[in-house]
């Protein structure tokens, strides 16, 4: 019989996230992997700007905050000054794939020995559900009321596919919080991304398709189904590098 309890790297407090939000699951996965690898005293997380801006309130290990989109620049500095530490960034799509695209591409291209947890929920959550670069075509948001139109707004940005082309990148995988099985697969991917850094293999990124029930206008279960039926077609799962 298996047992399950809160990982030590996760505080026993309540999050500010909406009911059914994927951030809580992602926080737990990161904490669980850190416990499994026994690196809690060595790890330094870099929190983004976005819904997860106060992620450090939930994790029981050292964290730093970065300006919007600059998490990988801050993480690069921390890792270079403290190479013995395990440094990771936790970023949403507004942070990593919009305002922080520049930092993301250059950190990956330099092959920084970092781990990136990229939460893709296809909208800007914190500011009110506006269209993000990752918003799907025809997806309605508060700034694309008729749905995203390719002629007007361009196409969804597939940052993981772009980064997989760079020689400095060691590991890229896209996973989805569409079911308990998907969450367990995501946990394996997050663990591998941390192991790569421990083994000095270079830049690793795990993109997680994560539900935002509030701004998708769906109930939490329907949001998971939407990932399975719609989002995975635009953002296919699997190991990209």
């Amino acid at each position, binding site marked *: 019989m298996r*047992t*399950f309890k809160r990982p030590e790297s*996760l505080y026993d407090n*309540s999050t500010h996230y*909406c009911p*059914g939000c994927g951030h809580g699951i992602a926080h737990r996965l990161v904490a669980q992997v850190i416990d499994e690898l026994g690196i809690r005293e060595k790890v330094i997380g870099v929190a983004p700007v976005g819904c997860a801006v106060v992620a450090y309130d939930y994790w029981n290990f050292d964290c730093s905050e970065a300006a919007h989109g600059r998490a990988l620049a801050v993480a690069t500095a921390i890792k270079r000054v403290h190479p013995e530490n395990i440094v990771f960034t936790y970023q949403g799509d507004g942070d990593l794939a919009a305002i922080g695209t520049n930092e993301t591409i250059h950190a990956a291209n330099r092959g920084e020995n970092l781990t990136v947890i990229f939460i893709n929920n296809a909208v800007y959550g914190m500011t009110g559900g506006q269209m993000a670069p990752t918003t799907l075509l025809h997806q309605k948001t508060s700034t694309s009321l008729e749905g995203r139109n390719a002629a007007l707004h361009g196409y969804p940005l597939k940052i993981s596919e772009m980064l997989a082309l760079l020689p400095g990148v060691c590991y890229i995988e896209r996973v989805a919080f569409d079911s308990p099985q998907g969450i367990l697969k995501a946990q394996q991917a997050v663990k591998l991304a941390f192991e790569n850094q421990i083994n000095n293999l270079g830049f690793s990124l795990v993109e997680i398709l994560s539900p935002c029930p509030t701004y998708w206008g769906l109930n939490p279960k329907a949001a*998971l189904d939407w990932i399975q039926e719609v989002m995975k077609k635009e953002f296919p799962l699997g190991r990209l590098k």
Partner: protein
Amino acid sequence: MAKVIINVQKCKGCLLCLNFCPKGLIKKSKKLNLRSLNYVEFDPQGECLGCLQCAVVCPECCIEIRE
């Protein structure tokens, strides 16, 4: 049989656990917690498989499973 312990004060009533329980042992309570949210309750008489799906999918990490 596994024992499911739910921290009802942390529960936000998203009902994901309820949707994934293969035995239907989790129900939405009519009672409210201190945050005025309808939390979920586990049926202690039910035969829990210990599959962990409810705990894995819980965004608030408020479900603990013991033997």
